[in-house]
């Protein structure tokens, strides 16, 4: 720990203490993220995807615009939620104070936290109603925004560019396979999925579409992406209802039929 970078963190009414967080980091985190927080812990060679390098202070799951630091709450949520389909478990069983202390310590690994402030969280507007029109419009956007190039026509993570993707450390990275489940690394709820479009996933090829999507567009895209996932929510029901009454859609650039 660079003690010159002593940090605190604030989540709700709790204030994290970096010195205390260091103890917890050594107990829970050091094996993957390493003593220096650079993602080179003893387990790192055996882990895919690789552990986060905290020295770069680049984080995938944020509420803040691309290129900015996340809020303490963002880091706290990431620690609490874990990252599905990775080796990062949910640390929800730890006390809230423990998790806030960990956030404080994680912030000591990069000087960015001293020089910059976290970005202003993106506002997620109320969700628009799920309708046939919104789902179909989302499907059009999936094609128009070329989401399919990485995520594949049916969202299986097998688009034509998928095999060429690397993260910011040149490690191969696979685009999200929507058919694998309802959770992604940064999202469980519709609002969180919406947020990903606007924040992007920093350190990966997934850009921010904040300048390309209106809020209504983003919600429509959320509604369509939910139809590619296994659970039978209202979006999927709407989609299947449309499928019953319409000709089979072209599968060239989308369609989870």
């Amino acid at each position: 720990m660079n003690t010159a970078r002593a940090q605190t963190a604030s989540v709700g009414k709790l204030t994290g203490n970096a010195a205390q967080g260091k103890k917890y980091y050594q107990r829970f985190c050091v094996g993957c993220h390493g003593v220096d927080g650079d993602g080179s812990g003893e387990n790192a060679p055996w882990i895919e995807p690789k552990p986060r390098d905290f020295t770069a202070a680049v984080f995938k799951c944020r509420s803040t615009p691309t290129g900015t630091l996340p809020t303490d709450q963002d880091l706290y949520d990431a620690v609490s939620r874990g990252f599905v389909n990775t080796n990062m478990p949910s640390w929800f069983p730890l006390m809230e104070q423990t998790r806030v202390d960990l956030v404080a310590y994680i912030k000591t690994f990069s000087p960015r936290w001293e020089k910059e402030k976290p970005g202003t969280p993106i506002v997620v507007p109320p969700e628009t109603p799920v309708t046939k029109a919104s789902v179909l419009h989302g499907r059009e956007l999936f094609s128009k925004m070329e989401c399919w190039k990485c995520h594949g026509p049916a969202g299986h993570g097998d688009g034509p560019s998928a095999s060429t993707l690397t993260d910011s450390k040149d490690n191969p990275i696979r685009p999200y396979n929507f058919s694998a489940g309802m959770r992604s690394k940064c999202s469980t709820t519709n609002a969180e999925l919406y947020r990903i479009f606007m924040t992007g996933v920093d350190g990966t090829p997934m850009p921010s579409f904040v300048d390309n999507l209106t809020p209504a567009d983003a919600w429509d895209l959320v509604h369509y992406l939910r139809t590619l996932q296994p659970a039978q929510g209202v979006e999927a029901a709407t989609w299947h209802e449309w499928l019953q009454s319409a000709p089979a859609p072209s599968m060239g650039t989308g369609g989870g039929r």
Partner: protein
Amino acid sequence: MIMWLPKGSGGAKHSVSSPARAGLIVGLVLSTAAMTPRGASSAPVAPLPDRADAAAAAPARDGRYTLSLKHKAAIPAFARKYSLACSACHTTWPELNNFGQVFKDNGYQLMNEKDSPIQQSNSYWPIAVRTTPQWHMETTTNQPIDNVAGDPLAGQHAGTVTQQGFDLSGIDFLMMGTLYKNISFQLVTTLDPDGSAGIEAANVRFDNISNNSWFNVKMGKFELDNLISEKRGEFLSNNGGMYQNYHYQPVSSTVAFGLGDNQLGLELMGHNKNSYTRYTLALLSTTDGTPGFPAGTGKGMDVMFTLSQAWAVQSLGLMRVGVFGVLGKSSTASPTSGGEPIPGMANGDKSFTRFGVNANLTFGDFEVLPYYMIASNDKALTDGTPTQNAKWNSAVVEAHYVVNPRLMFMGKWQSVKMTDQYDPGTPSTQGNIDGLALGLRSYFFMFSRDGLALHVEYAYTNSVGIFPLSEDGLGDPGTSLPNPPLTEATTVKSSSLLIALDFAF
């Protein structure tokens, strides 16, 4: 994981047969009894024989001294599977912290969609081994020593027995994990230093039934859900490693049940997301975990419940408080065949109860685990004169100072006090036990692949009129039991000094 029995003790679960012999319920015992002949339900009923007779009928020990070495659980296989250090799940292994508790409660799953074996490399095999090479010294006072060596008829005097040297614990083979998403298993086999093998635990668990963490069911042989787990305890020495009240029985008791013994049965278990709230309800065979319908057991069932609630005191740590109870049955008669009790057909059940409170309180780097239990056996559950119910109280206070995940100092005080003997004529203090243990565990390393600890521990117990539950002291080749002191009111002082290398891989 196992309280290693003396060589050749055979597996009969025995309580004591004479007023001077109390308290012997030790660990897991594996039955070698033959299976019961079928269809003999109309056979005449006879009183149950003293279970010590069964012990006597077991193969004789090949050594006079009875050093009971025990072992506990730590599962590096999980650390390897998930690339997590031991310290993620253990305060210092083998004791679980709350993260480890949640992992266990979820059926050995992190719930990150990588739990099922199909998500693992084909080379992954969910097995870990643990053993403890050691040097230890056991000293036991007031043991009967022959006045003339080799001539037991020449009288005896009370003397101190001291045994010391390099030694081995047994080896635990710990296999646990998931068979499928939300279906987990546990298989713990053990190998004694003398080469005999056993099955300490074997069960299958259906986890999160209907996607509900409050509904998990397992069947097989398993550790009871003791908030203070002996299987995951930090103490290893003969005297310190045992929670006396988990195995205690009063003088002349015929009850075999031990809270610290793994049991055969069915357990319903539930917990909230962070396991701050937990409950179990277990239905158990009355065999005290011995498979094969042993003689002296019947169709009756023991019931155990546990309930605990934890609170996060953000400035201190997690505070967990629990209650538990056992409503047990023990048989008093059995139909016979050829004059011998028919195994598994015993009847005339009488009850015993265990109720208590326990806690796991964290104050920063300090951890305190208090425990109090009241216990009662029906007056019929004795091989002496059935005059009144036997009752006793017991308490434990254990404390850990966790300097860091690789260094811990620990202490444990425990006491068992009789309040009512089966026979009022029995000295009121006979069977009382007081114990204290101090130790440290220092880990040379603690990777996600394995761990090695230096374990140093000193412990002693005072037991009135009985031999120590650890069975230190002088063995009695005639009865396969250690000896009580020469008089009922004599206190046996037994101490253990242990220096060990404890590793798990």
